């Protein structure tokens, strides 16, 4: 057995969304990777910048120191300095008004003080930020934290000349804010100047040359790097926006170009299943057309067109076939199949629309005699003429059905019984008026017409309407009755046996639904070794728990012309029994076929399901000699074909009907079953001798001979002595259903022969 893997499908929109998701994931991944790379590069740059920053600060300090030296050197030009050193009496005024207001001192100098050559301040002032005495041995610039600010204290020697031999005339102490002063000497590309600090405590100071050991700072983020990062960030965002837009456009494009048109196509295909939606027109409102989808559309339209043409052709063929299947080829009327369908429909009409239903059955009187007398051709013409007369008489929308043979039916809807009788009478009158002499028939052709009717409220009668019509026909056939007979309940009395609705129902159920069919099997035993060689299948119907015997079954079958249907049902049941292993392997089954079935061209098809069993079973077809003789022409080829397939043919009831010996040699039979009447007649010496001679003769013709009706040992001995190959009868067992079939008959000492 094939195992099918479940295939997961997704819409184009779904695929588009998945694609966009994947693109987003890839883009985010790439973005993250780029970000990490940039961060790494940035970190590297920061390290490099840190080194550069330290160099910047170091260089600035070097420049600061140089500027202090230059300032010291330039003091020689500051005449006022020396004026004050030499004449400090107005130092206070000069200190207040002039010292910081000249061009000699850098503008950032916030405080200054003059000291004499001994390092003593020229004058003490309360607002002085210098000590009164400086240590001239420790004049290196110092950086200290004063009032929360870093300030640089420098002491410059004051020389009157540039002579290296001259001693300092005094000292100029200046205080500058350290960081702004340092900023003067460097642009600080790498250092965040606002972050510079020395980590000094309030009042703590260090030498200028110790600054690099204590300096703390933040790196100024590289403008170029930040700019680059910003550019990359913006580029990524812009790219993301573009990609998002492209993805959206892609999604919309997919939807517009593919999803929507394909949806249209799929909807169109869906509609094709239930109705004819015409051709799939081009979407003229669509701006963009996809060539491949257009090709699909065109192909679909062509396929639909071809399919529609094929459907039309098929419909036409179906109609023809239906017509063939539902019409009688001879008369052109509807046949039994159509009748059954129409009757069912009409029954539904009665049940759901509460209208009356009438059933008229027409049965030609003595049709067999006409056939026999004038031949089948004339008989056919009679049937045509009768059917045409009846059809003419029926109203519009009322059809005539040939049920088979010489039986016709008409269904009258929405009428009461009087209408049905009137219609039937009209039909009969027309038939009576027809001049059958034109067909060469000298005798009058009459039909018997039976009517059954039920009103809308009589649903319980519906089921037995056909049976009632049969009863009515039966009544109409009585001598002297030349009118349509309407069924009445009193007609049902005395018709139970054959026209019992119970039996009819059982038979119908069996034929239609195979319901209740029980094939019983009676063994046929080899006279040589007493082994069961095969079983004859015998029809029983179990209906409502009771068995309907063949004597009740077959009259109904015959009357209702259900021979072929019943044979088909029997074959199906036997096939089922074989499949279920009810019949022991390496035995066989004999199947009784009716004469009607023998005439059927599709008999071989009926028997086809049995062919697989031929390798394990003997399958015999039992046909009465009367059936075979009367249908020799049509049956011979069929039987011969079946024999070639492996089936055997047995001539049943030999000696009870037509017994022309001449036909025997030409009959396609393998086995001849002597009728019970012949076998049991062997008690009488003359019949005994005749049976002996017949059997000897037939045996020499290589026919297998079966003796039916063996009920005693004595009879058995006689048939064995007569040369019969096989025996059948109650002596060996009654027809049984079920496991009893598999039990072999009573073993006797010695052989049967």
């Amino acid at each position, binding site marked *: 057995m094939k195992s099918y893997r479940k295939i997961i499908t997704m819409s184009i929109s779904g695929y588009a969304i998945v694609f966009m998701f994947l693109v987003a994931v890839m883009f985010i991944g790439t973005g993250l990777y780029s970000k990490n790379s940039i961060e790494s590069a940035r970190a590297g740059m920061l390290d490099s910048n840190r080194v550069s920053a330290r160099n910047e600060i170091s260089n600035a300090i070097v420049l600061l120191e140089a500027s202090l030296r230059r300032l010291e050197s330039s003091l020689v030009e500051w005449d006022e300095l*020396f004026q004050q050193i030499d004449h400090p009496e107005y130092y206070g005024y000069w200190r207040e008004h002039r010292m910081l207001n000249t061009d000699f001192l850098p503008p950032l100098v916030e405080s200054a003080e003059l000291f004499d050559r001994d390092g003593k301040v020229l004058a003490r002032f309360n607002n002085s930020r210098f000590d009164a005495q400086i240590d001239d041995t420790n004049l290196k610039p110092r950086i200290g934290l004063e009032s929360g600010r870093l300030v640089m204290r420098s002491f410059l020697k004051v020389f009157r000349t540039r002579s290296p031999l001259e001693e300092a005339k005094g000292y100029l102490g200046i205080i500058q804010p350290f960081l702004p002063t340092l900023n003067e000497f460097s642009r600080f590309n790498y250092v965040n100047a606002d972050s510079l600090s020395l980590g000094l405590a309030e009042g703590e100071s260090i030498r200028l040359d110790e600054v690099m050991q204590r300096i703390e700072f933040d790196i100024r983020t590289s403008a170029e790097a930040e700019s680059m990062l910003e550019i990359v960030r913006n580029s990524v965002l812009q790219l993301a926006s573009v990609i998002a837009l492209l993805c959206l456009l892609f999604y919309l494009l997919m939807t517009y170009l593919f999803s929507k048109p394909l949806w249209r196509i799929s909807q169109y295909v869906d509609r094709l299943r239930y109705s004819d939606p015409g051709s799939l027109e081009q979407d003229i409102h669509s701006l963009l057309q996809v060539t491949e989808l257009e090709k699909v559309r065109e192909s679909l339209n062509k396929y639909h067109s071809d399919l529609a043409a094929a459907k039309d052709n098929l419909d036409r063929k179906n109609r023809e076939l239906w017509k063939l299947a539902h019409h009688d080829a001879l008369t052109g009327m509807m046949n039994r199949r159509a009748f059954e369908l129409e009757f069912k429909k009409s029954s539904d009409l009665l049940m759901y629309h509460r209208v009356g239903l009438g059933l008229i059955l027409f049965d030609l009187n003595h049709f067999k005699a006409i056939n026999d007398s004038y031949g089948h051709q004339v008989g056919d013409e009679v049937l045509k003429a009768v059917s045409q007369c009846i059809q003419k008489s029926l109203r519009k929308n009322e059809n005539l059905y040939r049920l088979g043979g010489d039986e016709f039916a008409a269904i009258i809807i929405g009428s009461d019984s009087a209408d049905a009788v009137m219609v039937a009478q009209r039909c009969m009158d027309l038939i009576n008026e027809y001049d059958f002499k034109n067909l060469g028939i000298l005798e009058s052709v009459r039909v018997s017409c039976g009517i059954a009717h039920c009103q809308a409220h009589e649903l319980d009668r519906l089921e037995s309407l056909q049976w009632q019509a049969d009863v009515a026909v039966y009544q109409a056939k009585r001598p002297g009755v030349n009118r349509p007979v309407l069924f009445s309940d009193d007609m049902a009395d005395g018709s139970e046996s054959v026209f019992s609705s119970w039996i009819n129902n059982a038979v119908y159920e069996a034929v239609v639904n195979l319901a209740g069919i029980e094939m019983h099997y009676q063994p046929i035993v080899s006279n040589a070794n007493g082994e069961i060689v095969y079983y004859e299948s015998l029809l029983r119907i179990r209906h409502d728990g009771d068995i309907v015997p063949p004597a009740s079954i077959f009259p109904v079958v015959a009357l209702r012309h259900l021979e072929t249907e019943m044979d088909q049902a029997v074959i199906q049941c036997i096939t089922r029994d074989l499949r279920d292993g009810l019949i022991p392997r390496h035995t066989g089954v004999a199947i009784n076929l009716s004469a009607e079935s023998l005439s059927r061209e599709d008999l071989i098809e009926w028997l086809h399901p049995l062919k697989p069993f031929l390798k394990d079973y003997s399958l015999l077809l039992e046909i009465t000699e009367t059936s075979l003789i009367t249908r020799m022409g049509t049956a011979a080829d069929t039987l011969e074909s079946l024999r070639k397939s492996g089936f055997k043919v047995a001539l049943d009831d030999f000696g009870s009907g037509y017994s022309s010996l001449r036909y025997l040699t030409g009959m396609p039979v393998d086995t001849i079953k002597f009728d019970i009447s012949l076998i049991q007649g062997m008690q009488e010496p003359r019949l005994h001798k005749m049976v002996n001679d017949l059997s000897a003769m037939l045996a020499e013709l290589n026919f297998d001979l079966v003796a039916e009706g063996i009920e005693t040992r004595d009879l058995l001995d006689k048939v064995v002595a007569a040369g019969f190959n096989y025996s059948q009868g109650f002596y060996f067992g009654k027809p049984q259903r079920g496991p009893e079939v598999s039990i072999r008959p009573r073993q006797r000492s010695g052989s049967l022969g």
Partner: protein
Amino acid sequence: MQASPISRQCIIRIKQYLFGASRMTPGLATRYSLGLSVCLMLVSPAWGQMISLNSGPDMAIEAEYRPGDSSRPLILFIHGFLQTRDFSTVRRLADALADNGYSTLSPNLSLGISKRKRSVSCESIQLHSLNASAREIGLWVDWARQQGHRKIVVLGHSAGSVMVSAYLALQPNTPVDKTILISLDYFGPGRPAAFESEAHAISAQKMLDKGDDGLATFALSFCRQYVTTASRFLSYFNWNEQKVLSAIKNSSVSNHVIFGGQDKRIGKSWIEDLVSKHALVHIIDGANHFFDETHEFDLLDVVEQILGDDPVSETR
């Protein structure tokens, strides 16, 4: 470094030519000549020495001395108020005359600052007086004499001329042969653009009367805020025109006064007064107080003319 006398003379003559012929703008001529000066300086040896004298305790004064032709007089250049020897008027004259073979002595008056090198701003504490400057002039004159210079011409410009007059008053028997007083004016009232000097003089006097000789801000000369003591202020302010005239009149030297015809500070009456006091007044038309532009050459010519009036052989 300075150009040699010959090269400098060439530069001056070239300048005179260029500018006198009006073939260049003054600025362009100056730039051209300066460029030429640089070139010539490069090939010219430098000369001149700095002389330092003690003018008092912890007070040294310096002068640039360029000895020249001994047959020619030494010219002692006295710069203007609060200026230095390098003030353009006196500098150009000193250089030109030095180039012409004159001995030049260009001091920076101390103005109370030992070895003063730069001009003094008005707002500086002014610890000098007119008298001190006059005495310093005397020191330089004495020094020049000690150097063997028999003829000494003292040339002053603007306030320097006033200080020369004060020197003359201080030393009536000066060995100076003559004075050349360029743009001579005076302190005291009536001086053009005197600001509030007169009122300040009254205030200063009052201060002194009170015994207060502390620092105060006065207006003196071109200084609106001149920080000095009252006494020192008055030492300048009180040297008015009468005193100048008196000094000139009473001096035994020949006093030549040179004015620029366009000097706004000099009135006609002043000139007349000077003439009446036997000063020999020379007017250079078109020149201003500082004898800028081409008038420097005119000034030079007049000065040389003045210098050349008396023969070298004469002695005093």
